[in-house]
């Protein structure tokens, strides 16, 4: 098998492994199934184009996320700040880092993921993004910081703030 065949197979294998993750990442941010599917398509075709020119990619997974991320940003720019309300950041205390199992993150038992989703959508996009990466995709703060190009501390703080906000929303919405 020659090299180009090999690379092609490798890339398709990567698709099999990562398509769902990229889909989730896109879907939970744009809340639109068809759009998310298109974004997945474009993420992979674009990444392929880059590779097909012989350019080296150190970390394929990160590269895919970054590409997807850029596409999502483009999408929001075109929509002109999107349809999502950003919550006003008022009086949120600086939380202790790494409190994922503490009382702070407990919510009503009736909540399921489907029910949380609309609340997720109400979050500021940067908050939603880290929550998806951290909990839905199970990436560590280190990986996320590498992906987003921001320090681990910034990421940890953001994750905690996001969780607090989400929890607050979950507590105030009564019709579950």
């Amino acid at each position: 098998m020659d090299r180009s065949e090999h690379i092609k197979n490798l890339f398709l294998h990567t698709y099999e492994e990562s398509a769902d993750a990229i889909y989730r990442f896109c879907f939970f941010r744009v809340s639109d199934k068809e759009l998310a599917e298109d974004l997945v398509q474009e993420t992979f075709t674009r990444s392929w184009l880059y590779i097909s020119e012989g350019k080296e990619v150190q970390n394929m997974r990160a590269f895919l996320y970054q590409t997807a991320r850029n596409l999502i940003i483009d999408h929001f720019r075109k929509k002109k700040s999107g349809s999502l309300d950003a919550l006003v950041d008022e009086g949120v205390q600086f939380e202790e880092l790494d409190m994922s199992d503490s009382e702070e993150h407990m919510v009503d038992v009736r909540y399921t993921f489907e029910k949380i989703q609309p609340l997720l959508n109400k979050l500021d996009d940067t908050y939603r993004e880290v929550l998806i990466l951290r909990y839905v995709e199970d990436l560590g703060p280190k990986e996320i910081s590498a992906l987003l190009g921001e320090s681990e501390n910034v990421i940890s703080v953001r994750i905690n703030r996001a969780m607090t906000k989400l929890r607050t929303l979950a507590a105030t919405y009564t019709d579950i």
Partner: protein
Amino acid sequence: MKKNLTHILQEGHTHTLSSDKKDALKTHLVAYMNKHPFNAGGVRPIHTSRSIFVLFTGLTRYKYMPIALIIALVLGGGTSYAAEYALPGDTLYPIKINVNEEVRSALAISPEAQAEWDTTRAERRLGEAVTLAAEGKLSAETRTDLQTAFEVHTNQAQTLFAQIEERGRTEEAVIGRTKLEASLQAHSQLLSEVEAEHSDDNTEIGIMLASVQSHIVPVGESVAALAPTVRTMAMMKSDTATENTNEEMSANTGTRTAHDAVTESMVQARMHIASDSLEQVQELFEKFKDDLGTQRVGEVESRIHLAQSAFARGEASFEAKNYAQALASFQETFARSQELRVYITVGARIQQQDADDHEDTVPETEQKNDDSSQIPVNASVGSETDMQSDMDSTTTNEIEIEAHTESDTPDEHDEDNGGLRVHGNLNVDLDI
């Protein structure tokens, strides 16, 4: 009763593409991949974000550069050739390191090319240090800057060599490291010589020298680890006669003894590299003999003989099919030649000792096969021209060029007589 929010979110992981949809997307992807087949060879435009970012960084530090210079750089004049010989303190020195060298960094795609370029950059910094030191102009501040840069490039080169090794390209790593070690040795010797000549004011030279020397051993050791049959420069320096070679060879069980079989073709390749290198050195010697001063001429002549006899031994071993020995001898030839290359060119330069005389010598410390610094740079201003056919326009990299003259915003920049402010990213298409 409560539930952990993190667990709820984790449930989201089950959300996936339907398998039908996933397959449909894959089919589409395969069609796309067939339409854009893998093509690593051939000319291609360079759009790596690294090159853009790096070029941009280089320019923003000199936001108020003279318009003519920016236009020349940006609109196709190529990198500034005149800047190539600049020394720290010269007006064009920032161009040399922040523009010219960065453009060449951007061109180095493979780890091998990057490592080679990092080695060259380390050499340049050392050469500049030696030249300034010889003129008695190596200040503490300049020395710090040059030392830092030299260390960064050397470390980066070493990191890249390790990566190259990881990929199984041992030969390339050995050659690269040998070149680096040789260069360090040569600069170290020159610094010592200059230090001795400036006995009354040589603190900074001494510090620089110490730094260079501290890097020689690790680089040498990394060569030895890769290629236990070769003698590093350190070994050669300790003036061992050839009968010690065998003992050293058996004592040097690096981590890769069993790894690389010494094949005939490997040895042949090394022989060619060694003979090219030796030839280059002889040419350089002819060219710069008159500029070296009698003491250095004598030194160089005897070392050339050592390199030549190593080569002759290599040839003999090769004919006798004693490939390990041949490889070691050609390695020695190569290492000695590389050291001489630097010693001759930098030595000739400092012998001049003329503060104003920068224009004559081409920086021939660099290998002949380096890309010429005359690289046509066609900058496209505006949105990307590529990648249009199958997709919508990407995150556009727009460049705004504001030209301003003295009359604009007089409070900010009174020292300039007009300049160009460059925002955003610069897309550079390079024809290689």
